[in-house]
């Protein structure tokens, strides 16, 4: 009797094994093959030597990493971080009141507001970026409007500079700031706000003492979700910066399209990946929760 029981158990555990392999196998193989192997090769390539005409010489060197600290390239990196930071701060400042507004509405209304927020993103990103070119160029819609109304006499140069780049990035990433902030504000226990009010705190004090600290994880998640894509974008900088503005993404892209210097491109990509992973690590250490990214 006992023997039979254990046999049956074994049968179940084999079935369990097979089902586990069938379920987890594909994604495991995929992430080894398409994440770990490529990243390992990227690391390897970043230590190789560039030969003439874009040929790669398989000799170990640290030159690619040293070149990053050349003033020309280093300025690009500084500029990228600056633009990404400005975009991130603006999207949180603009997005938080909006997220708060949505979260305080009834479920039905906030659902509609949420769908309205997502609809513009079913368009092709690049065609929308081109809309910014139409809007912001010297004889574009915004300049025409400003002149007709009489606010300005001459067209303002709003395209092919950092203003246009940041406006474009802000557009693309605002929802990524709003969504996690919305979900953390929505989870906030509204009773706490009432209690704070009853105990005599004004709205400003309540906001800074209760609302802001309790919704900080959502803000963290928003910061990460905006900062990461921003720093890697090259298409927006190219289209709205007009080639005058360079970010790390453009620099990497150029190593493959123009300069044909794969090892240096690999080193820059590694730098970008490490920069982001360190940032995520720090965020997690000071209390940000990466699970909020999923919300």
């Amino acid at each position, binding site marked *: 009797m006992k023997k039979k029981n254990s046999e049956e158990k074994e049968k179940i555990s084999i*079935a*369990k094994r*097979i*089902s*586990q392999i*069938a*379920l*987890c196998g*594909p*994604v*495991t193989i995929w*992430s*080894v093959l*398409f*994440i*770990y192997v*490529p990243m390992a*090769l*990227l690391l390897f390539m970043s230590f190789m030597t560039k030969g003439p005409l874009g040929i790669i010489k398989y000799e170990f060197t640290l030159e690619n990493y040293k070149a990053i600290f050349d003033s020309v390239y280093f300025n690009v990196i500084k500029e990228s971080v600056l633009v990404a930071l400005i975009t991130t701060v603006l999207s949180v400042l*603009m997005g938080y*009141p*909006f997220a708060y*507004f949505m979260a305080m509405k009834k479920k039905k209304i906030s659902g509609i507001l949420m*769908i309205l*927020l997502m*609809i*513009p*993103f*079913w*368009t*092709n*990103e*690049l*065609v*929308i970026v*081109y*809309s*910014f*070119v*139409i*809007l912001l*160029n010297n004889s574009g*819609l915004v300049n025409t409007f400003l002149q007709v109304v009489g606010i300005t006499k001459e067209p303002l140069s709003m395209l092919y500079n950092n203003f246009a780049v940041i406006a474009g990035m802000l*557009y693309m990433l*605002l929802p990524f700031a709003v969504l996690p902030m919305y979900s953390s504000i929505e989870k906030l226990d509204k009773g706490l706000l009432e209690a704070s009010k009853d105990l005599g705190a004004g709205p400003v004090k309540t906001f800074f003492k209760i609302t802001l600290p309790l919704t900080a994880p959502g803000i963290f998640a928003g910061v990460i979700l905006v900062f*990461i*894509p921003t720093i*890697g974008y090259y*298409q927006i900088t*190219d*289209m709205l910066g007009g080639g005058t503005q360079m970010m790390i*993404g453009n620099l*990497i892209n150029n190593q*493959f399209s123009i300069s044909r210097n794969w090892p240096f491109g690999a080193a820059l*990509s590694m730098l*970008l990946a490490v920069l*982001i*992973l360190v940032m995520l690590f720090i965020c997690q250490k000071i209390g940000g929760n990466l699970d909020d*990214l*999923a919300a």
Partner: protein
Amino acid sequence: MEREDSKSRARRKKVWHGMSWLYAIVIYLFLYIPVFVMIIYSFNDSRNNMVWQGFTTKYYAKLFSDSGLWEIFGNTLLIAVVSTLFATVIGTLGAVGFKKARFKGKGLITYSVYFPIVVPEIVLAVATLMMFSLSDVKLSMGTMILGNITLLLPYIFITVNSRLAGMDPSIEEASLDLGANRFHTFINITLPAVLPGVISGAFMGFSLALENLVISSFLADASTTNLSMRVYSMVKKGVSPEINALSTLIFLVFLLMMAVYGITNIVRNKVKLN
């Protein structure tokens, strides 16, 4: 005195209410003006489409006879559909399996699934290109699809996971106890429970693959182009209104799909209630 106080408080509340709606409208204007510009400028009688030159519908007519653009659209659609299908199957199986499975390295695999969202796309694009080039794999539409699948996986994983989190595990156990095997339990119990997550993940993935530029252009061969790559290559000289026309049509199809999906959901819920 007290009455006046409550009156002024009510007024202040009203002003606050109005201001918050005004703020929301400004945000929505910021988000929708470029969309309207895209639609309106598909009717612009100008080849490089920088400045309004007059109304025409000729680019819609031209669109239907432009075989080059249709080929690009076909490529874009094929890549998006195939990579969404694969990513959805692999991601759904994985999310369901990872919830219960315990094995060495599970944490490392989970982290790597999220990697494409966590690190800028260009990093993965460069790395994947290097792998294909070092292993002598020729670039083609196939390599573009492989790159896109990797990119979409985390989205499916996240949406299915969030459904699994709200699921009662005892239902699956009951099904096993009552004699259903694991395959039948997965098909009849688990899958229907996570289906909304699967659908929303697939939808999100599809819309991302449809407009993908970075990984697609790194992994494309010289003869394969998708819509975003085409737009990007046209930018310097001005994007033709034909592209706006095509994008507008795709956008309308998306809106229609969402509307149909929304309405069927509402109807289904009503039927259930009755």
